[in-house]
């Protein structure tokens, strides 16, 4: 068996004395999609923040592709192979869509030469071409030169996703990618994600839409109050009374 893409072991995190993550361990296998679900405030986004280094851990360790990144500064984590999107969209509103994507490419274009090449003067520069292609692929080509701030929520949400994929990381953490999309757009997103997975990317997805999760992820990890309360295939986990009570509710389906 290959090394898992992401291994969290014994993670601990408290905010002002409140334990937001408690002794959390789970593994994300390579090349597959795994979902992280749980009620509001369970700590899902916090897990993302710990893995990407926004917060330091209070205890435990994080391995990405077999490397220990627990003490790595946040800006190095993306280089270790893990990129993320954001629950509250965090695009740079004054930049154009294309420029946002160029920022996303930074890890792969960080040499001094790349930094100082006047790429905007060179027509059809390779990084621009790549970013445009990625936009076309997700059906957003027409927005390339728009300023991000004015775009509708759903479009921005998808740009955020494209930006995360452009970092070239092989583990993607997506925080509620389908939120704010209507069902048909959700379908398009599903195809997009399945295509990414088919390319061998590892996905860790936080999502509240169970149909969506069902159609992408083989495995789910359920959090409640910062603790793992269940893990396994969604169809099995769904039957777990603890999960039903805390998360799905009884009137679902």
């Amino acid at each position, binding site marked *: 068996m290959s090394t898992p893409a992401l291994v969290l072991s014994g993670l601990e995190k408290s905010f002002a004395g409140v334990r937001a993550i408690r002794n959390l361990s789970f593994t994300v296998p390579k090349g597959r999609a795994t979902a992280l679900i749980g009620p509001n405030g369970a700590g899902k986004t916090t897990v993302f923040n710990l893995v990407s280094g926004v917060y330091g851990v209070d205890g435990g360790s994080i391995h990405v592709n077999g490397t220990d990144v627990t003490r790595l500064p946040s*800006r190095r984590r*993306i280089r270790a192979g893990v990129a993320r999107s954001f629950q509250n969209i965090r695009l*740079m509103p004054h930049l154009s869509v294309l420029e946002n994507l160029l920022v996303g490419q930074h890890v792969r274009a960080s040499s001094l030469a790349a*930094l100082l*090449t006047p790429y905007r003067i060179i027509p059809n520069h390779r990084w621009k071409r790549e970013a445009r292609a990625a936009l076309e692929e997700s059906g957003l080509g027409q927005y390339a030169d728009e300023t991000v701030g004015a775009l509708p929520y759903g479009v921005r949400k998808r740009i955020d996703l494209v930006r995360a994929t452009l*970092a070239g990381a092989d583990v993607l953490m997506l925080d509620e990618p389908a939120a704010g999309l209507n069902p048909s757009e959700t379908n398009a997103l599903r195809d997009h994600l399945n295509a990414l997975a088919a390319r061998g990317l590892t996905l860790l997805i936080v999502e509240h839409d169970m149909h969506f999760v069902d159609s992408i992820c083989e495995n789910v990890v359920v959090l409640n109050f910062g603790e793992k309360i269940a893990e396994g295939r969604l169809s099995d986990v769904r039957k777990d009374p603890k999960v039903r009570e805390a998360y799905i509710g009884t009137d679902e389906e």
Partner: protein
Amino acid sequence: MSGYLTGVLVVLSFNIMAAYAVYLPLAAGQLNLGIAGFMAIGAYAAAYLTNELGWSLWTAIPAGSAAAGLVGLIIGIPVLRTHGIYLALATFALGQVIAAIFLNLDVVGAAAGYPVATYAAPPVVFAATAGVVLVMLLLSRTRYALYLTAVKSDPTVADLMGISVRGIQVSAFALGAAVAGFGGAFYAHHYSFIEAQHFNVLLSVFTVLYVLFGGVQTVWGPLAGAIFFTLVPEVLRASDQWRYALFAFFIIIFMALRPQGLVTASLFRVFRRKPGAAA
């Protein structure tokens, strides 16, 4: 060229260099209100080198610029721990402290000022300014410039994208300081005399003023702002004592009508669209 025009263009040149010194860190979200301090460092360092150590202009001026950049680098590291208005005030304080140090530094004349023997004639000053503008134009077309904006607009995310936010911030600050020092070094050798009192807060603040007035969305803004701020008072020369009052009044009205500054990004977008629309 007429003597008057030469005089005005020289003033314009120094204003342009100062404007870009303010613009660079501003593009990364740092309002540097201490730019005069860095000009003073460049001016005094270069003047000291030509006066006392007999260096030539061509080595002393880069050295003065480097000295200002280096001080910017060393001071930037702690000072850039602050953000926003705190940063602006920290740089303001920094400028005051630097000027006060020169005011008391006897090797360079202290309060009596420091005459400079070597002379940089107007054409040299013009060439240097053109060089600064060209470098800025090129720089604005690079990823570096893109990252300046990224760091300004969302440092947290820029960091998560792998960008060294500190690196960008400190380098922008130091580069701005180096440009200021470059301008200062030329100032010293053109006007043949420097005094610490010249490098005061108002110099810093007014430089910031015309950069913002020109607009910070594009590289052309500082240039436009500097031109405006140099030429308009000349045009108003005839109005005598009302000159500055009129000038200020004009600024207020203009900014109320065009808050984003003289040159904006959308202005360029309009230009770029035109050929497309025609086709």
